[in-house]
């Protein structure tokens, strides 16, 4: 977090950086892209536009032997993502942890097999431990049990939690966590409920 702030000054020079490229003598990323165009077809709500990458996705698709992202590129991308976060009016982060728990439990939505009109979940439990009573949790992300109890609920911390859920790439380059707000998976209101799930002292996340 501090790193983002400290390096925010670099944004100015970012324009001078060359466009991100996975270039190299054996760069076959362009060819892989054409193969994908030929191999997939639109189905349900999943159109072919889903194969298009934004800058973050492109930067974070490197194979292990490709040159890693430079610090400068990481910082530029983090600053760009951070600048695009939309906070609720008046920084009002109030939400209902019970609604948050439902969103965290629910994993459906946006697959070609899902009804486009049906609600979309956050599926936080797929990757995180949250409340102790839910034992079916995944471990791709860190445990969020006692999240608020450990960090406190001062306005700055709560605001950062909202930002993390809205766009984890703003603080962690190439995070494996989806950009729930940035990509429109969840609404601002849903993210506020999740903030409540993490910070409300009455939330099971903060129980012993």
């Amino acid at each position, binding site marked *: 977090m501090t790193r983002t702030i400290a390096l925010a000054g670099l944004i100015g020079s970012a324009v001078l950086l060359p466009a991100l490229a996975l270039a190299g003598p054996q760069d076959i990323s362009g060819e892989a892209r054409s193969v994908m165009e030929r191999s997939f077809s639109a189905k349900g709500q999943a159109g072919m536009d889903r194969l298009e990458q934004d800058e973050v*996705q492109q930067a974070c698709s490197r*194979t292990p032997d490709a040159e890693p992202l430079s610090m400068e590129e990481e910082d530029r991308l983090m600053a760009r993502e951070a600048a695009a976060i939309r906070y609720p009016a008046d920084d009002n982060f109030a939400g209902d942890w019970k609604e948050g728990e439902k969103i965290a439990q629910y994993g459906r939505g946006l697959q070609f097999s899902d009804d486009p009109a049906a609600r979309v979940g956050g599926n936080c439990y797929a990757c995180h431990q949250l409340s102790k009573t839910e*034992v079916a*949790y995944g471990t791709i992300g860190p445990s969020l049990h006692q999240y608020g109890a450990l960090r406190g609920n001062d306005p700055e911390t709560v605001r950062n939690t909202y930002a993390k859920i809205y766009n984890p790439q703003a603080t962690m380059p190439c995070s494996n966590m989806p950009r729930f707000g940035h990509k429109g998976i969840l609404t601002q209101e849903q993210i506020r409920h999740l903030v409540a799930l993490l910070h409300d002292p009455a939330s099971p996340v903060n129980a012993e």
Partner: protein
Amino acid sequence: MIGKRTSKSAIALVLAGFAASSVVMAQSSGGDPLAEYREMMGDDNPAEFSVMRGEELWTTARGPNNVSLEKCDLGSGPGVTEGVYANLPRYFKDAGRVMDLETRLLHCMETLQGIARADALEQRFGDGAKQSDFEALAAFIAEDSRGLKLSVPLRHKAERKAYALGEQIFFYRAGPHDFACATCHAQSGVRIRLQDLPNLTDAADAQKAYSGWPAYRISQGEVRTMQWRMRDCLRQQRFPELGFGSEASVALITYLAHQADGATMEAPGLKR
């Protein structure tokens, strides 16, 4: 060969009753359905039904040309099923491209039996009411490589190309969730909910995962193939639909197979 299969039909009959209830069981179970299933059933695998049906399909004359698949060359010459699955995917000169097992079967249905591609693909995945010929044929052919070491050494340049493309696709992040295969399958010891995720960039994990496909999926009551697995993980990845037998599907499977090189084949396996 005949004797081996006949002895299995006895097991298959015993299994008949269990297979039907398997879907219900997997859903109602809060614990590890695979472990519970094994406890009830031992190592008997309902995939044996598919193996038998696959063998019949292989030898039965079908399609507009009214011929069997016994002239189909899966890599070791026309009609040979023994050991071939342990060497797939591979480059096929007659088709001018790399093919995995199901893609090759589709090719043979089209070119030998004269079955239209669209008709063949109609039943690429079974769904209870209609059975899939691909799933049965794949189970039968995979079984003929049981106990052999998987060997996909990428000797042909088209195979190396398929591997490299597969690797690119494996790490390709896109869609509303920014997912790539690598999001879920490039770390060891992690899980989604309670499902352990193999690290498919790691040889030991890849071997364990790959060697059991095609597999009887307890939760679905069907044998599923690697083509199905790729399409379904990509569905969860929020990508559009992966074409059966498409270049990308073959590239991904070539990547996975080479990662798993040296695995002792155990397909058809039994999965959650």
